[in-house]
C-alpha cells in the first residue's frame, strides 16, 4: 500500500472533480458516487492540485493547527490521502 512521501504531488484522479452546489454543498464527484468533504479534509483536498507537495500540504496544516502534535498531523494527512488513493479518488 503506497503512502505519500515528502515530494509526492497529490491531485484528484482522472474523472474525479469538485462539484455540487455552493460552498456548503461542495462535493467531490467520481464514477458512481460523490462525497461531501468538510473541515480538515476539505483543506487538504483543496491543496491537492498536482503542484503542492505532500511536505508543503503538511506544513500548512501544521502551521494552522498549532495545538496538535506535528508528527500526528503528518500521519493523519498521509492516512487520509492513502485511503482516498485506495478508492481511486486521489493520485500521487
Amino acid at each position: 500500500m503506497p503512502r505519500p512521501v515528502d515530494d509526492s504531488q497529490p491531485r484528484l484522479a482522472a474523472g474525479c472533480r469538485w462539484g455540487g452546489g455552493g460552498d456548503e454543498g461542495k462535493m467531490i464527484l467520481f464514477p458512481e458516487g460523490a462525497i461531501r468533504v468538510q473541515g480538515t479534509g476539505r483543506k487538504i483536498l483543496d491543496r491537492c492540485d498536482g503542484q503542492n507537495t505532500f511536505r508543503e500540504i503538511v506544513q500548512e496544516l501544521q502551521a494552522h493547527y498549532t495545538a496538535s502534535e506535528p508528527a500526528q498531523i503528518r500521519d493523519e494527512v498521509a492516512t487520509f490521502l492513502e485511503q482516498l488513493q485506495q478508492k481511486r479518488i486521489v493520485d500521487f
Partner: protein
Amino acid sequence: MLPNPLALIAEITHRCPLHCVYCSNPLQMAGANSELSTEIWLRVFREAGELGVLHLHLTGGEPLARADLCELIAGAHSANLYTNLITSGIGLSESRLGALVDAGLDHIQLSFQDSREDAANWIAGAQAHAHKVELARAISKHRVAFTVNVVVHRQNLDHLEEMISFIEQLQPDRMEIAHAQYYGWALQNRAALIPTREQLDKTLTIVAAAETRLAGTIRIDSVVPDYYARYPKACMGGWGRRLMLIDPAGDALPCHAAGVIAGLEFDNVRDQSLGWIWRESSAFRRFRGEEWMPEPCRSCERRTEDFGGCRCQAFLLTGDATATDPACSLAPAHRIVEAAVLEVNLGEITSREPENPQPVSASSLRQLQQQTAGFWSYRMNPE
C-alpha cells in the same frame, strides 16, 4: 420532504449496433423518428442541474448512434452535471473520443461481452470485440475516468479469472462485474443465463482475491445476483427516491423496466419540466414511500434498506407490481425464483451423468453455439 434526484439516466436512443442476449432494454423500443431533439435534451440537462442532480448517465441503445452526442455532453457539462457515457464503443474513433473528452466527458464505461473474441461476438451478435480492445487502449491515454464492464452469466462464469486478467491489461480505473439481470431480453433468455450455485460460490472467492490483489489500482464493483441473494436489491435506491430515467421518446420512468407495469402512466419531458415530473408525476408517486407496501414488507425492518425490492421484477414474475419482490426469501412468491434457480442446478447434476454428458456452461465457442443457437433470442433494433 422530498429529496432531490441524485442521478439522471438518459436513454438517448434505442438504436444499437449490438444485439446482446441479456440487453435490459424493453422488448418494445422507441424508433429513431420518436427520439427527442437536441434542444429538448439540453433543456432537460439544465433542469437536472438546477434540481440538484449530480450524475448524468448517457446510455441507450448505443449513445454514439446519435450524431449530436458531443453537443449533448457539452450541454450537460455546462449544466454542472458529472457526465458518464455507457457505451459499446462501436462508432467511436480516436478523434471523436478526443472531442467528447474535450466537451467535458468525465467518465466512460466500456462494455465487454467476454475475454474471448469469438464468444464475445457470439453473445453480442456482432463483430465488436476487436474494436473495443483497440478503443480501450485509446481511452487509457485520455484524462477521463475509465470503467470496463463485463456482464457475467452461466455461459462465461467458468472463465471469470481469465476475464478479470483480460480487463486488467486494458488498464481501467474501475471494473464492473455485473451479473445479468432478468428484464427485457435477458428475461426472455433467462434459462440460458442463470448461473449455477457452484459457479456463484467460485465467483465470490475469485472476486474477493482480485479485489485484494488490485486494491489501489483497479476498483472492483460486483454484487451477488438477486436470484441467489437472501434479500432483494434496493432497486434504483428506492422508487422515485434518487434516480430518474428518460427514455429516447422523452417518457420519464422511475426504473428502466417500469414501462412493463400495467396501468402506470408516464409524463413526458416534451410537456413537463423535470422538476414537476419528479414531484408530481403519478408514475413516480405510485410506489414512493411505504403506503403501497404489502406484508411482509410493511412491518419488515429492512423496508428502509431495500424498499421491497424491484416493482418491475415483482410485476414481471407475479403479475402484481405491489407484491414483495420474489427475489426476497420472505416473499410469498419466492418459490418462482427458487424454481428458476432449482432448474439450472438440477440441470448441472444431470449433466454429470456419463450417459447424458450435456455441459451447462460452454467451454468452447462450438459448445456455446450448440447450446444457444435457436434457443436464445438476440436483441432486435427499433423500427
